[in-house]
């Protein structure tokens, strides 16, 4: 029973164009032009930079900030090329409506797949460099000297020969009228003064004073508040509800059905709306999925482990022959559960609809995807729609563009109350019940050894859910049914280079039997690398141990063709003291992977006391090619371990009667400060001309296998299904 969300054709097309979801779709950028526009700061120096007369430098950023530091990093890169005074730099977000009007000069908004910096650094740096050249030219014109004789530094232009100087703010207006240089040369990163440095994030003061306005905090004049309940069984519908029972409750303004499957209450305050919705009798038509359970889903996936048909993600040699002639075989089956994102700020969006204009304020990871959803839900053309991006209280993939999600709901509600802004805020319970979940996956792995204990073959069969089949079906169609993202960290170089597999094994087959239960899947921090790293890196330890070899040495032999993977692994091994005695009771484990074009590794130290597994220390290595802000990268690495270890220990969305059982943090726990291991981050950018790697996600995947490999060392027990709470293992 596949659950296929309905997609309106128009939103489908625009959402597709807006990319998102881990695959770069190669959208060309419009040439830069300094045309007049509205709503944004002036004067423009190209499309990326504004310098105001008071010397304020405004960098345009369309990628979204959700705590990962992207807006700061991108501003650093532009300021670097601009030779700006960093203390004068601020940012602004052009709206998707403005972008559409100007033929997308700022490129893609979608912020997921660790792409914020790595996929926009080049054109944004060029934007900064172009603006610098324009400012220099404006001064050259004024002084009637060659532009080549003018230097720019910290917002000051100097002509040494004539001992003249001026500032960016003074020549910006004249500069804005000059042509924008195309593809200006960029600085060598070794000369960086602003980029590559541990600059502080924007907005920290507002955040600590409670002044930062998240989507959930937005207030507009005359605004009403709404909350919503969607059919708890995915794919079910509303049968009936008794609006009259709550219509008279204090503050209630409207009780309405939203689409086919949800009911909302609109009231003066959110609390009034929630109380009324909780009291509202609703009868659901639970549809065809009302009997699905975690057990029935597991059976479905198990059948895929030995199925004939599967999509190939990586293959070389002859795995059948290698298995047939093996002197020894090692086999294991692993599985990974559904998980919700549970960002601290529940889903929300505020909409105001009139027949002439539909506006949306939303914390979103893809304002263009939200814009598409506004078009689809309002029925208005693009020139009558607008989206204003709000700060996000966490994203982790949940706030990407998913069909029929909270933005769609908010617009449908506001359409019923033309002229009145309505803020839709989900309860935590709704957030747990209607996520876009980390998909379920199982893996059966078989390794083949020759008589000398050389690994001659590996077959890894994945069986489980495809995110793309649900949310970007056109990509799966292009791939003749295959979902390439299932193979994150395991893929062939040709299929998915940024997630390519690093071990060289003479006979290899990694394939996927797609099994799509009715639970809607979504992108998640790391997403498929999370289970793939556990499967592969725990099994690598199993293989090494079966061959009686040291786990590090065993890997090293297979990594000869991938020096950057090897360097990251060696770095953590050395720092943790691999091969040297640990403190009494302390045990170590390793893992590594290449993901989002970054090479990452982790080494963990753990102890086990009774049912308590304590992670004391994790050493992490990251090679993202270039490091734009080392301090923020350290924070992403440590933060990724909190997210990843919370998932490992605590988090499963259990399915019973077609719905998610866990309703809040009491049953879906998350790590606290007492459990935080000491994280030592090694940042080892190797430079060069290759693609840059992301940093928000990659390291999340190496924590869990490193910890589980250490757990095996401590106990001799190999855990192959998650979370650990199902094995009565607690986080200490």
């Amino acid at each position: 029973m596949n659950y296929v969300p309905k997609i309106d054709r128009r939103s489908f097309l625009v959402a597709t164009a807006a990319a998102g979801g881990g695959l770069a779709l190669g959208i060309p950028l419009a040439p830069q032009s300094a045309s007049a526009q509205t709503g944004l700061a002036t004067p423009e120096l190209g499309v990326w930079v504004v310098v105001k007369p008071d010397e304020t430098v405004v960098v345009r950023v369309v990628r979204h900030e959700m705590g990962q530091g992207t807006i700061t990093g991108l501003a650093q890169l532009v300021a670097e090329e601009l030779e700006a005074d960093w203390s004068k730099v601020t940012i602004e977000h052009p709206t998707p409506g403005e972008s559409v009007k100007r033929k997308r000069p700022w490129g893609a908004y979608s912020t997921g797949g660790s792409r914020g910096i790595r996929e926009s650094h080049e054109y944004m740096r060029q934007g900064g460099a172009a603006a610098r050249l324009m400012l220099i030219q404006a001064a050259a014109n004024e002084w009637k000297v060659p532009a080549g004789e003018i230097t720019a530094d910290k917002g000051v232009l100097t002509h040494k020969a004539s001992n003249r100087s001026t500032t960016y703010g003074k020549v910006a207006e004249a500069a804005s009228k000059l042509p924008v240089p195309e593809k200006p040369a960029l600085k060598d990163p070794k000369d960086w003064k602003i980029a590559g440095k541990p600059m502080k994030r924007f907005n920290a003061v507002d955040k600590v004073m409670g002044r930062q306005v998240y989507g959930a905090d937005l207030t507009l004049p005359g605004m009403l508040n709404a909350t919503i309940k969607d059919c708890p069984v995915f794919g079910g519908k509303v049968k009936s509800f008794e609006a009259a029972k709550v219509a008279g409750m204090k503050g209630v303004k409207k009780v309405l059905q939203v689409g086919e499957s949800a009911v909302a209450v609109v009231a003066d305050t959110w609390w009034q709306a929630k109380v009324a919705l909780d009291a509202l009798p609703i009868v659901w038509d639970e549809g065809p999925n009302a009997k699905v359970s975690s057990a029935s889903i597991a059976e479905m996936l198990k059948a895929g482990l030995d199925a004939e048909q599967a999509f190939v993600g990586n293959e070389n040699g002859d795995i059948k022959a290698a298995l047939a002639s093996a002197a020894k075989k090692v086999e294991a089956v692993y599985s990974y559960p559904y998980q919700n994102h549970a960002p601290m700020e529940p889903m929300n969006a505020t909409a105001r609809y009139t027949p002439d204009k539909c506006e949306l304020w939303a914390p979103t990871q893809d304002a263009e995807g939200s814009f598409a959803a506004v078009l689809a839900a309002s029925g208005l053309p693009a020139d009558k729609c607008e989206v204003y991006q709000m700060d996000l209280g966490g994203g982790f993939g949940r706030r990407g563009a998913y069909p029929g999600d909270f933005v769609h709901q908010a617009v449908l509600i506001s359409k019923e109350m033309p002229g009145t802004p309505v803020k839709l805020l989900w309860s935590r319970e709704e957030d747990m019940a209607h996520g876009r979940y980390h998909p379920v996956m199982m893996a059966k792995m078989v390794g083949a050894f020759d008589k000398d204990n050389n690994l001659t073959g590996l077959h890894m069969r994945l069986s489980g859910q495809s995110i793309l089949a649900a949310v970007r079906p056109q990509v799966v169609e292009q791939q003749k049914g295959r979902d390439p993202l299932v193979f994150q960290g395991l893929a062939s170089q040709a299929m998915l280079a940024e997630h390519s597999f690093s071990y060289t094994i003479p006979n290899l087959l990694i394939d996927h039997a797609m099994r799509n239960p009715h639970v809607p899947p979504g992108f998640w921090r790391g997403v498929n690398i999370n289970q793939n790293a556990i499967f592969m890196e725990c099994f690598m330890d199993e293989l090494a141990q079966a061959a009686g070899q040291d786990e590090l040495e065993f890997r090293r032999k297979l990594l000869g063709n991938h020096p950057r993977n090897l360097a990251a692994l060696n770095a953590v091994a050395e720092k943790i003291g691999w091969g040297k005695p640990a403190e009494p009771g302390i045990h170590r484990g390793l893992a590594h992977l290449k993901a989002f074009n970054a090479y990452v590794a982790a080494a963990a130290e753990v102890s086990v006391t009774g049912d308590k597994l304590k992670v004391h220390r994790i050493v992490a290595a990251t090679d993202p090619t270039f490091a734009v802000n080392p301090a923020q990268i350290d924070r992403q690495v440590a933060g990724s371990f909190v997210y990843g270890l919370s998932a490992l220990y605590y988090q499963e969305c259990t399915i019973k009667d077609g719905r998610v059982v866990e309703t809040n943090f009491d049953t879906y726990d998350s790590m606290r400060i007492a459990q935080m291991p000491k994280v030592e981050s090694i940042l080892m950018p190797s430079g060069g001309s290759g693609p840059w790697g992301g940093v928000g996600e990659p390291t999340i995947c190496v924590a869990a296998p490193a910890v589980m490999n250490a757990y095996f060392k401590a106990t001799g027990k190999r855990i192959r299904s998650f979370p650990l709470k199902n094995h009565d293992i607690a986080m200490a």
Partner: protein
Amino acid sequence: MVALTINGQLHNVDVDPNTPLLWVIREQVGLTGTKYGCGIAQCGACTVHVDGVAMRSCALPVSDAAGKKITTIEGLAQNGKLTKVQQAWVDHDVPQCGYCQCGMIMAVSALLAEKPKPTDKDIDDAITNICRCGTFQQVREAIHMAANA
């Protein structure tokens, strides 16, 4: 009518006495630094001080707060001057998305008022707020910075 003293100001609010203090602070009083995260006193994003004690306002009926001295995140800084804790948070660049940090800062401020030089164990016992971005390493370092400032 419930009479509340929030950040030194008296507010008479006309609400159902069972309304959680959190929602009165956010919706009637209009101070949105105190956040909704879970509604069941698990995550701590809604932490405020009630008579100096850190409490999770999402599970506290407003009637129970009547007549008590309530401090929210907006009431910490005086005349725009950040407290030691807030300043340590800025200096150490603690917040990532920042959504949980107001509650975290309120919990930490109450801890430091009680134990000016907390040990790591004190921190582990007292600070049980959830942060999904995972700022705990920086939170611990910033607590020690604030304690030694």
